[in-house]
């Protein structure tokens, strides 16, 4: 350890030293203030792991149980901390196991740097043991990737990797390093952070005229409506966003990934957009006169049928990625740029207003939704519990302070609909890719990214079985994750679609589960299963109060559906309440 500290000091003094490519990798991580790495070793990355052995105390390496777990953990880490998540994996199967997570991070704009080992450079293309063409496999699912075959490239390439991953619209970067480059000794001249790449412009220049035009539209609007996405969170622009909507008196609705950027109980927060979003925001999208989209990308789950989406409205689109402008929805005024900068400019130009009557329209729809959907969900007549009442009870106990990580399916939509938030970066979910198996590893990462916060992973009985091996990671490294399995004994979301759109032909959605509590016990994790409403609150409290991780299984109604719903291919105004 002493030698390491000495070495690091030497680097600081900018003296040339002879080190291996592997050490250069680790030095780069230290320079980039990385504290936690999620990974799994193997033949082609052994030199890096060997060097890591000396970095104990400087880098916290979490040994996962599957590389998919590593990358989802890194994603969870990035989402709660706002920093870059880092992953190590070996070549071949190690690298291919990352692909799902890379695709997930790419579509959800999550900053991740994945470092994979690769066979010796002289073996490339020979079908060597554990050789796969990782660069080509991952090209469509990375913001940038690069193969290093010479150690001297490592400092500059890693600097570039971190810069690209976190700047502009963030995303995953993969660096594939051949084993010879990891072993190669070279003269290390220190690390220089990357701040500029001539072919890469992370932030488009803001145009004053567009900001002015947008402000003019907003000032003239009778029924302005703001829809916001993760761009607000990624841009760390929560305060700027709030100031903007408050000055303009602008009702604002969120996409699944924008959730928690604005506290749930804010008077201008009118709810969730999209397929299982709230009634008002969906219907009134087709009634507003000016639609202001902030850091969101008009995903089809948000827009429903595009040719019937907000056709009456003038559209203002604030986005950092010029490729998003006009991609799905034609904009009237594109305000491209970092919303941390564009929002204050807009706020300065808009008039202070209150659109009381217009806001009331949202509230009327909310009332209707409460009567026809929400009340039944929260206070069901049936003996069976609903997912919504579980989330409601959880809200009471966490008071919106917890980080909620969800998997994919009905429980995800219900959690997004009903979980309350008072702080940003609190909702971690696989939105764009919809990756089942995301939640457990992501929750582990989320806990490392926000160690002082309570992390609750809400997972279906199906999704939990996709990555439950990560219980081993919890057992070994002690991440305090509260696992809440909402067990409906079905692949619920698929069953719901089969019920509604395939004449109840339940084709392979009846999924058996093991005894989750016993499984948890096998990993030394305390757990409990409840199926009676009267036990629910106490069980939730026990879970939250418990020191350490905890698994709570709640048996819920088997054939409950998530409503409202905009059926696929329908317009947002054709939203169904049942």
């Amino acid at each position, binding site marked *: 350890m002493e030698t390491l500290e000495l070495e690091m000091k030497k680097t600081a003094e900018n003296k040339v030293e002879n080190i291996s490519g592997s050490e250069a990798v680790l030095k780069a991580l230290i320079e980039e203030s990385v504290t936690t790495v999620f990974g799994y070793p193997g033949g082609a990355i052994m030199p890096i792991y060997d060097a890591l052995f000396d970095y104990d105390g400087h880098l916290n390496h979490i040994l996962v149980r599957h590389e998919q777990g590593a990358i989802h953990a890194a994603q969870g880490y990035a989402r709660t901390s706002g920093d870059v998540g880092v992953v190590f994996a070996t070549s071949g199967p190690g690298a291919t196991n990352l692909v799902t997570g890379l695709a997930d991070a790419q579509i959800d704009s999550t900053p991740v740097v994945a470092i994979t080992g690769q066979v010796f450079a002289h073996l490339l293309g020979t079908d060597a043991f554990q050789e796969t063409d990782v660069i080509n496999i991952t090209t469509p699912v990375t913001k940038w990737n690069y193969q290093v075959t010479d150690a001297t490239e490592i400092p500059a390439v890693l600097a570039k990797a971190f810069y690209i991953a976190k700047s502009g619209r963030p995303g995953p970067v993969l660096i594939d390093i051949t084993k010879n480059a990891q072993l190669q000794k070279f003269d290390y001249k220190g690390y220089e952070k990357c701040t500029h790449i001539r*072919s890469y*412009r992370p932030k488009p220049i803001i145009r004053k005229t567009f900001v002015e035009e947008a402000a003019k539209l907003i000032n003239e609007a009778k029924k302005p409506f703001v829809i916001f996405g993760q761009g607000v969170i990624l841009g760390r622009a929560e305060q700027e966003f709030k100031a903007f909507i408050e000055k303009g008196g602008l009702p604002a609705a969120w996409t699944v990934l924008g959730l928690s950027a604005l506290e749930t109980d804010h008077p201008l927060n009118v709810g969730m957009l999209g397929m299982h979003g709230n009634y008002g925001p969906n219907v009134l999208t087709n009634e507003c006169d000016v639609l202001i989209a902030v850091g969101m990308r008009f995903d089809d789950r948000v827009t429903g049928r595009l040719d019937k989406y907000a056709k009456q409205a003038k559209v203002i689109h604030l986005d950092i990625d010029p*490729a998003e402008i006009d991609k799905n929805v034609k904009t009237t005024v594109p305000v491209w740029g970092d919303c941390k*900068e564009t929002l204050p400019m807009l706020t300065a130009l808009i008039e202070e207003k209150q659109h009381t009557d217009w806001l009331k329209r949202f509230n009327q729809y909310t009332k209707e939704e409460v009567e026809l959907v929400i009340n039944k969900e929260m206070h069901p007549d049936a003996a069976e519990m609903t997912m919504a009442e579980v989330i409601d009870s959880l809200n009471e106990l966490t008071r919106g302070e917890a980080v909620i990580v969800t998997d994919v399916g009905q429980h995800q939509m219900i959690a997004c609909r009903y979980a309350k938030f008072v702080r940003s970066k609190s909702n971690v979910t696989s939105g764009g890719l919809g990756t089942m198996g995301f939640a457990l590893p992501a929750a582990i990462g989320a806990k490392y990214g926000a160690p002082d916060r309570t992390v609750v992973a809400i997972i279906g009985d199906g999704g939990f079985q996709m990555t439950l091996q990560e219980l081993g990671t919890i057992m070994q490294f002690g991440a305090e994750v509260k696992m809440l399995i909402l067990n409906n004994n079905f692949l619920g979301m698929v069953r719901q679609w089969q019920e509604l759109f395939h004449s109840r032909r339940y084709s392979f959605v009846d999924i058996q589960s093991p005894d989750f509590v016993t499984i948890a016990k096998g990993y030394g994790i305390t757990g409990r299963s409840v199926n009676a409403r009267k036990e629910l609150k106490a069980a939730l409290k026990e879970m939250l109060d418990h020191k350490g991780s905890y698994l709570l299984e709640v048996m819920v109604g088997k054939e409950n559906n998530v409503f409202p719903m905009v059926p696929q291919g329908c317009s947002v105004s054709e939203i169904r309440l049942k």
Partner: protein
Amino acid sequence: MKQEYTITVYTENQVGLLNRIAIIFTRRKINIDSLNTSPSEVESVHRFTIVINETEEVVRKLCRQIEKQVEVLKAYYNTNEEIVWQELALYKVPTEIIAEEVKVERLLREHGAKAVVIRKDYTVFEVAGHREETDNLIKVLEPYGLIEFVRSARVAIIKDSAGFHLKLKEFEAADPGEDAAENEFLNRQEEVFTM
């Protein structure tokens, strides 16, 4: 309306970038009619010339996706009227036929074909021109035992481009100015905001 568009992409010279650009098309099931990579007027900057048949809206979106790639400096798209373009074709024909049939010799001259190699058994001609022109000569030569034919990808010069030297200077600056950061597709208003 679908029509032929030529996309010109200025990039860094980087292994793997060809694939990154190609999959932007293949992912959307768009056929690339022709693709050429070459150096550009600027040392160290590479130039792709890609021809596709699509609507302008699709081409514009594709260009934005291309520009989004880290190692891409700039992407332009143009209709055929806006460019000067050529393709090069090679034809291999039996030498005895050309020697004996006066007609063939005349045809080749009419098509502006130049002999590249003349051997006892065959002769290779080259023609540079537009697609129709090189296509025509295939039809003409077929009856005379055309042995082999190949055509290159399109290369194109944009008529009203001032080249890339100045743009690159902008890109190299840590804070690229208005000109570099300007996007070809949003040029209806030029004023740049500074606070």
